[in-house]
C-alpha cells in the first residue's frame, strides 16, 4: 500500500508550524496506523531528519497516550478505536490523509502531533477520588454494590483520558471526560460522602483550565475509543444541580 500524508509539523510550542507532505510506501494492510508512521519515521531518521513526533505507549488502546486527527476525525474513522488500534486495512491504496494534533486552548501543542494534556490531571486532582487513606478500609464485602451499579460505574470508569472528546467537540469541552469520573464515583456507595463537593470542584477546575461547555451534540461519544456515552454528561449535570441547589454543604 501507499498512503499520502499531510502532517502538522511544529518544532516547539511557540513555533508557528505548518503542514508537510509525506508518502508512506510499502505499507502492509496488517500494520497499525502507528506502525505505518514508524516506517515513515525510520526513513526520516536514516536521512538525518527529525522524525514526526507523536505520542504512543501501550499500543493496545488502554493507556490513552496516543491520539491525533486522521482525516478530520480524532483517532480516525473506526468507532471505538484509538489510533494505535486503527489498522491500515481500513484504508485504500493511495488514500490521502491529513494528520493534525488535538486543538484546544487547554491542550497546547508541544511538538508536531504531541499536545500537553496535563489539564486532565488537574481536573482529577480537584476531586476525582474518594478521600480514603491507606489502612482504614473495612472488609471489602461489607460494602454491597448492586451489580447494575457496579457495571454502570465500570462503563464510566473505562475512560482512558486520551482527550479525543475535547478534540472532537466544537467547543473543546472536556465535559465527557469530567462527567465520566463524576458518574463513576456517583454510581457507587463509596463515592457518596463527597458526591456534592466532587462534582462542583471538578466542574470549576474544568472551566478554569479553559475548556468550553457542552453543546450536547455527541461528537465526543462518537469518537471516544471506549464509546463512553454522553448520558454521563447528563448525569454530571444532574449531580451538579443537586450539589448546588439541594445539598447544603
Amino acid at each position, binding site marked *: 500500500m501507499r498512503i499520502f500524508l499531510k502532517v502538522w509539523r511544529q518544532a516547539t510550542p511557540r513555533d508557528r508550524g505548518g503542514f508537510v507532505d509525506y508518502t508512506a510506501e510499502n505499507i502492509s494492510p496488517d500494520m497499525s496506523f502507528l506502525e505505518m508512521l514508524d516506517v515513515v519515521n525510520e526513513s526520516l531518521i536514516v536521512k538525518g531528519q527529525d522524525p514526526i513526533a507523536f505520542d504512543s505507549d501501550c499500543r493496545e488502546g488502554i493507556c490513552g497516550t496516543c491520539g491525533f486527527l486522521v482525516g478530520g476525525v480524532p483517532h480516525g474513522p473506526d468507532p471505538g478505536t484509538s489510533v494505535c488500534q486503527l489498522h491500515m486495512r481500513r484504508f485504500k491504496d493511495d488514500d490521502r490523509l491529513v494528520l493534525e494534533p488535538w486543538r484546544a486552548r487547554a491542550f497546547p501543542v508541544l511538538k508536531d502531533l504531541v499536545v500537553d494534556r496535563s489539564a486532565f490531571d488537574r481536573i482529577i486532582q480537584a476531586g476525582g477520588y474518594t478521600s480514603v487513606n491507606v489502612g482504614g478500609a473495612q472488609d471489602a464485602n461489607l460494602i454491597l454494590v448492586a451489580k447494575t451499579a457496579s457495571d454502570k460505574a465500570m462503563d464510566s470508569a473505562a475512560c482512558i483520558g486520551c482527550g479525543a472528546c475535547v478534540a472532537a467537540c466544537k467547543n473543546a469541552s472536556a465535559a465527557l471526560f469530567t462527567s465520566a469520573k463524576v458518574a463513576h464515583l456517583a454510581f457507587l456507595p463509596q463515592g457518596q460522602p463527597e458526591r456534592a463537593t466532587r462534582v462542583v470542584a471538578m466542574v470549576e477546575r474544568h472551566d478554569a483550565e479553559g475548556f468550553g461547555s457542552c453543546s450536547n451534540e455527541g461528537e465526543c461519544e462518537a469518537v471516544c475509543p471506549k464509546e463512553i456515552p454522553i448520558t454521563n*454528561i447528563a*448525569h454530571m449535570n444532574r449531580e451538579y444541580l443537586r450539589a448546588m441547589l439541594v445539598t447544603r454543604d
Partner: protein
Amino acid sequence: MPSRFRRVLSSSVGTKLLMGLTGAALFVYMLLHLAGNALILAGEDVFNEYSHMLISNPLILPIELGLLAVFLLHVYKAVTMWMSNRAARPVGYLKKELAGHTSRKSLSSSTMIGSGLFILGFVVIHVKQFKFGTFYQVTDSTVRDLYQTEIEVFQNPFWVTVYVLATLLVGLHLRHGFASAFQSLGLDHPLYTRRLTALGVLFALLIGVGLAVIPVWVYFRY
C-alpha cells in the same frame, strides 16, 4: 470566592442549566403563541377577541416583562457562552469531518448561534410590527383590530418571506434545542431520552411549519 449563586450561574454546567431552563420556558411560550395565532384561521372576530383578552389582562405587563427577561437571559448566556467556547479553541483544524456513528450533530445543532441571532433580530422587528405597530380599531368598539394589522403586514411578499424564513429557523433551533434542554438539565433516562429526541423533531416541525403557515395563509387569502 464569588457567591454560590453566581458560581452556579457562571460555570459551564450552570450556564447550560440556565440555557435549558430559559429555553424550556421560551418553548412553552412558543406553543402558546402558536395556539393563539392559529386562531386567525378561525376568523377575524375570534382572533381579535383573543388578542383583546390578552392585552386587557392586568397581568400581561408583568408576564411580558418576565418573558423579556427570560428571553434576554437566554440570548445573553448564549452569546457569552459562544464566545468562551470559541476561545477554547483558538487554532482550528485544517480538516474536520463529522464523527458520524452515534453523534447527534446536525445542521440544527451546528447553527444554534446563527439561528438564534437571526431570531433575535426578527423578534425586534416582529414586536415592532405588531405590538407597537399600526393601531386599528374594530368598528364601534375599543377592541384593537390586530387582524387588520396582520393583513396589512402580510400583503407584502417581502415580509411574508422574512416571516416564513424566521419561523422555519425557530423550528430548526428547536430541533436541537428541545432534546438538548433535557440533557442540560440532567433529565436523561433510557426510557424516555430517545422518545424525547423524536418528540423534539415533531415539535420543531409543528412550531416551525405551523407559524410559517399563518403569513402564507394571510397572503393568499387577501
